[in-house]
């Protein structure tokens, strides 16, 4: 509760900051302070201290997992702001407003991690999405940015329509929006609601699959990630996507049984399609930014395993995956923002000119590829282990397919490393400060630390 209220207030505060000052560093500092505050009030919630007491009429339900996930997301946002804050303010004309929108997105995230009613799901998704439409189009003079924004809006609102249609079908049959309330009735198996309720749920799941950019509902992702200003791509690809997964897991946790056995075939097909489209299409890309868009689809395929199996291990896995993936992606996009040429050729010879950038970038890429000793390895490991743990040897084929696609992913990640280290070139790069480099190094160290002691992060969660 604290996080929802505080993030909304922070958003408003950021808007007013824009009125009072145009000093970009001041705006950034306010944002950082607000984020720190956000983390603190969220942690306070865990200890039962509330800013305002609100009766949510059980439309929201706060659990450790959701709260911890909030902390993780806010921390990732803080890293993002510390690393790319300058680029946020430089993305368009209105620096403070962008931060305000980011806070509204965080508000949506906080709702999505604890909703207990389909109404809250809908509101959370909209609060998350509408600021993103604007952020995508933030670079107003840029054709691509505008186009991306339009595409995002059209497809996003279409998926909202699907979501609402699903909700209304479920409501029509059960008469309630609560995702908890209906569960016992079905598991007892007394009333048969016919076909409408599962179809309604199917629609909701499809809308959520759209939000996490699972194939074949992924079409918006490459175009939007490619067209949006790079900083906001970074934000969307990490924080927003993770929030989509958490909302998905929450709903799935409660209602998957009603979907019947068919769901167990639909989801693996979608996972494989996602891995296929993401990994294979990324191979032929010329722009690193677009490659990262496809790679984020591919990573979503891995994260979908957490939806597929849904046990304790997969929950730990999605936390680890979120942390690992977000840190690496934020780092890569931060470097990408500083590049003049964002094609693969633009990275040629980076290692000679900017060894720190190249080395940290290599660590991030290795982590995304899931090479051992990086966080990405354990993230993937936990996911696959959860699958095997839940379904035994019967799911081994799925694991093998996933590992094969992970092997394909090595190809395009290593293309960047190859360009940086083994090709000659004159990479053009805007000025990087010492602080930026330090932050990058710290991120890289964090990745290796999580990769070496994955349980440290998870222990904190249980603590």
């Amino acid at each position, binding site marked *: 509760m604290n996080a929802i209220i505080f993030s909304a207030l922070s958003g408003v505060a950021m808007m007013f900051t824009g009125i009072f000052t145009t000093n970009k560093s001041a705006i950034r500092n306010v944002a950082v302070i607000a984020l720190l505050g956000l983390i603190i009030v969220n942690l306070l919630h865990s200890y039962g201290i509330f800013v305002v007491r609100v009766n949510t009429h059980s439309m929201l339900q706060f659990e450790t997992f959701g709260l911890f996930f909030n902390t993780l997301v806010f921390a990732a946002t803080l890293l993002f702001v510390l690393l790319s804050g300058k680029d946020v303010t430089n993305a368009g004309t209105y620096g403070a407003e962008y931060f305000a929108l980011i806070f509204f997105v965080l508000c949506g995230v906080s709702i999505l991690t604890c909703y207990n009613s389909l*109404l809250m799901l*809908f*509101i959370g998704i*909209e609060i998350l999405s*509408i600021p993103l*439409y*604007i952020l995508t*189009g933030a670079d*107003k*003079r840029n*054709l*691509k940015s*505008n*186009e*991306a*924004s*339009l*595409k995002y*809006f*059209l497809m996003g*609102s*279409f998926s*909202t*329509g699907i979501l*609402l*249609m699903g*909700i*209304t*079908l479920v*409501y*029509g049959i059960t*008469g*309630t*929006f609560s995702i908890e309330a209906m569960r016992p009735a079905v598991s007892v198996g007394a009333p048969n609601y016919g076909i409408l309720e599962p179809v309604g749920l199917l629609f909701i799941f499809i809308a959520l699959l759209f939000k996490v950019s699972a194939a074949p509902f992924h079409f918006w992702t*490459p*175009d939007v990630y*490619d*067209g949006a200003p790079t900083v906001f791509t970074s934000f969307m690809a990490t924080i927003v996507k993770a929030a989509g997964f958490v909302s998905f897991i929450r709903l799935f946790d409660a209602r998957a049984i009603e979907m019947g056995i068919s769901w167990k075939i639909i989801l693996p097909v979608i996972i494989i399609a996602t891995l296929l489209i993401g990994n294979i299409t990324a191979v032929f890309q010329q722009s690193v930014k677009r490659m990262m868009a496809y790679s984020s689809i591919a990573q979503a395929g891995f994260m979908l395993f957490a939806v597929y199996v849904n046990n304790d291990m997969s929950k730990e896995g999605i936390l680890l995956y979120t942390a690992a993936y977000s840190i690496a992606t934020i780092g890569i996009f931060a470097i990408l923002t500083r590049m003049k040429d964002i094609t693969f050729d633009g990275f040629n010879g980076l290692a000679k000119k900017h060894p720190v950038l190249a080395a940290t970038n290599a660590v991030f890429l290795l982590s995304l590829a899931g090479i051992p000793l990086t966080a990405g390895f354990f993230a993937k490991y936990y996911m696959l282990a959860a699958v095997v743990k839940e379904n035994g040897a019967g799911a081994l084929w799925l694991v093998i397919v996933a590992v094969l696609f992970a092997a394909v992913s090595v190809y395009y990640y290593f293309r960047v490393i190859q360009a940086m280290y083994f090709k000659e070139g004159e990479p053009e790069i805007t000025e990087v400060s010492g602080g930026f480099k330090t932050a990058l190094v710290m991120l890289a160290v964090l990745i290796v630390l999580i990769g070496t002691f994955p349980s440290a992060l998870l222990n904190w969660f249980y603590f």
Partner: protein
Amino acid sequence: MSPVPVTHILFVSTALFFIGMYGLFTRRNMITMLMSVELILNSVNINFVAFNKYLYPGKLDGIFFSLFIITIAAAEAAVAIAIIINLYRSHHSIDVEDAGELKY
């Protein structure tokens, strides 16, 4: 005069939903596409109100949900219009096929 059965109303809303969907992938005009989205949202509104009125007359959940949808649809429309205006400024066209630079 016999009351209109709920199935008739559902038929109307479903028809509206699919008209909206059809509009989304056949129309080129951005404004028309926006209108198609609105059609979809409104079909859902009709659904909610009808379900509430016929099946759960003692409660107001469905009606409130449709209020939220209307509000949010308004917000979406505002953003959408802003995006379209912006695009028109740069493309001098509101044909969605002109916005096809991002592909592959």
